[in-house]
């Protein structure tokens, strides 16, 4: 009974709250007012039902599903035991290799985009997930890589294969350039300054027409060549797909090894407690710069790939929303967890494509799901379990 009353009041509140924006539409030119009462009714009923769902989910969260510490989560089991791991990898690789044969070119293209975001997510994972540095301007490195290739290609006809390491290098340089001023900043200040940098790069690209051709962007960027031979567009897409699979595997491998390396462990120490980390003798500044630089390298590389794939870039592709999407991939997938970030990227990129019918509401659903995930499952899809060692009676 109490629930009924509460839901009723919530429903009335939302109906009144959204009344101006949802019900009234004013056309000041023709002096017409459009009243959409069905919206209000839908709002009332919708919020009434949703409030019940919300209350139920919150109650479940409060009760707190206890994690059973002895039984390893399925993904840990999958990766730690050889007998599961090898067939799994084999199956995934076979599927990836045969995928283009069964589906249309359009879907292969989408898969390439998803793979690009996987690598971007893994790159940002280094900065945010491993080192704990909240970077909201990651898209700047992506833009830098893309424009490096585009401009070098335009002015000096630099090919794709040469541009790829160059893009990575330029990304790393910008990562260090960005990292140096923010070394002393913590937490939220760091977030805002990186956000500012991201916007500065985008605005410079948009306004310095002489250098970057402004809002109209750069077109006709050459596609990658196959051992020196020029290839058609369809072959190009196929080629990009396999290239991205290879790069994806490479990235996963490198990030995995980095995580276990000395550098990776200093990042984890940095994330947990900066001052204690310094007290233990880890050079805070070098570690932070390394995190920024390495994270930015992947973004730079992916920028080159993006430019080659779409053959046209302009500053509008590199807004804060992109940074937000990549950050969501990392956070929703599970910070610090490679499998989580990969899954997160696939879900966040492939799902909107499948739900094309709702394309108008895509961004709305995206925003709402970010809020919902944080409220109900903040640790992400794959929660990062700390490495633990078990002793068994031998």
């Amino acid at each position: 009974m109490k629930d009924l009353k509460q839901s009723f009041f919530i429903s009335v509140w939302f109906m009144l709250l959204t009344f101006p924006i949802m019900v009234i539409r004013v056309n000041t030119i023709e002096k017409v007012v459009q009243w959409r009462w069905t919206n209000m009714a839908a709002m009332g009923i919708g919020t009434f039902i949703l409030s019940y769902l919300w209350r139920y989910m919150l109650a479940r969260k409060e009760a707190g599903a206890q994690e059973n510490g002895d039984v390893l989560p399925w993904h840990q089991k999958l990766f730690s035991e050889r007998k599961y791991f090898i067939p799994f990898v084999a199956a995934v690789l076979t599927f990836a290799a045969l995928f283009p044969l069964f589906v249309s070119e359009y879907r292969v293209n989408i898969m390439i985009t998803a793979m690009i975001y996987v690598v971007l997510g893994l790159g940002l994972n280094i900065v945010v997930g491993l080192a704990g540095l909240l970077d909201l301007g990651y898209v700047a490195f992506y833009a830098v890589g893309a424009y490096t290739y585009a401009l070098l290609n335009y002015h000096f006809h630099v090919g794709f294969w040469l541009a790829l390491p160059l893009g990575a290098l330029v990304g790393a340089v910008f990562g260090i350039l960005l990292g140096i001023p923010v070394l002393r900043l913590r937490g939220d200040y760091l977030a805002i300054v990186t956000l500012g940098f991201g916007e500065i790069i985008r605005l410079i690209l948009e306004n310095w027409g002489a250098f970057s051709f402004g809002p109209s962007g750069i077109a006709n960027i050459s596609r990658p060549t196959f051992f020196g031979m020029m290839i058609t567009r369809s072959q190009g897409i196929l080629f990009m797909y396999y290239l991205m699979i290879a790069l994806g595997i490479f990235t996963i491998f490198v990030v995995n090894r980095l995580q276990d390396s000395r550098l990776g462990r200093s990042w984890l120490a940095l994330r947990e407690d900066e001052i204690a980390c310094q007290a233990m003798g880890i050079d805070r500044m070098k570690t932070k710069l390394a995190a920024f630089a390495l994270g930015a390298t992947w973004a730079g590389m992916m920028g080159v790939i993006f430019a080659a794939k779409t053959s046209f870039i302009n500053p509008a592709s590199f807004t804060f929303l992109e940074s937000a999407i990549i950050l969501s991939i990392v956070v929703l997938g599970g910070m610090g967890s490679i499998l989580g970030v990969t899954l997160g990227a696939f879900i966040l990129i492939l799902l909107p494509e499948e739900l094309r019918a709702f394309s108008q509401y895509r961004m709305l659903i995206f925003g709402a799901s970010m809020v919902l995930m944080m409220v109900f499952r903040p640790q992400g899809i794959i929660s990062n379990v700390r490495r633990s060692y078990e002793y068994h009676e031998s």
Partner: protein
Amino acid sequence: MEYFFELFLGGLTRGSIYALIALGYTMVYGIIELINFAHGEIYMIGAFTALIAASLLTMAGFKGLAVLALAMVIAVIYAGAYGYTVEKIAYQPLRQASRLSPLISAIGMSIFLQNYVLLAQTSDFLPFPSLIPQFGFMKSVEHIFSSSELVIVSVTTVSMILLTCLIKFTRMGKAMRATAQDRKMAMLAGININRVISTTFVIGSSLAAVGGVLIASHIGQINFYIGFTAGIKAFTAAVLGGIGSIPGAVLGALVLGWTESFATGYISSDYEDVFAFLLLVLILIFRPEGLLGKSSTHKV
């Protein structure tokens, strides 16, 4: 010389608007240490609500200042309500969580609100009627300082004074200061934290709505995206002044307004936003806690 005054007063106007929005950011940060990304969207919703209210009122026959006053009151009420709702949905459940969760939630809420207004209204630039009348006594200086700029600066000053009185002399103000200082201790002292936080959000949102209505009237058009840029700039201003500090937010906003005004006036108008961010980066490099912030020592 006249140009200098024009830029100075223009910067003052800009700074006033940024100050109104920045106050919301800084108050919320002071209390729950959260960057409320959705705050810019509340500003935008305030402007939209005012547009709808003003149109209905004009069609119903009201005129001039009455329309402005009523539309502003309605916008303030609605913005406060939106601020309250956003806090209850997206931030209250996350109060115990780490720093990152509410931030992501805030970004999500910002995207949600932007698209909500986009879908429910329109993606076009909607013309906003100029509700502020041209004053007779301003005629001689109209080219330097227009009537609407005068109204903006005066309304902002009045709002600041009211806010300072609220924070300094009322019980709720004291409770807000206490909660900002030490939340657990405030709870122990018998302060209802939930109510204080909700009040903070409502006050911040109301100020933002006032800013939204004024600037929409001044510029003449609104669009679902105005919240983002204004939000970032205002947040820059708040950080500039030292986030968590109310006089800092005002100071930072004025500094930002003047920098933008003079830079676009004397250097180049294309890079307007770049100057704002560059200023932020420079200040934070040399004085990480902001202009009026306290440099805190961190203990392990």
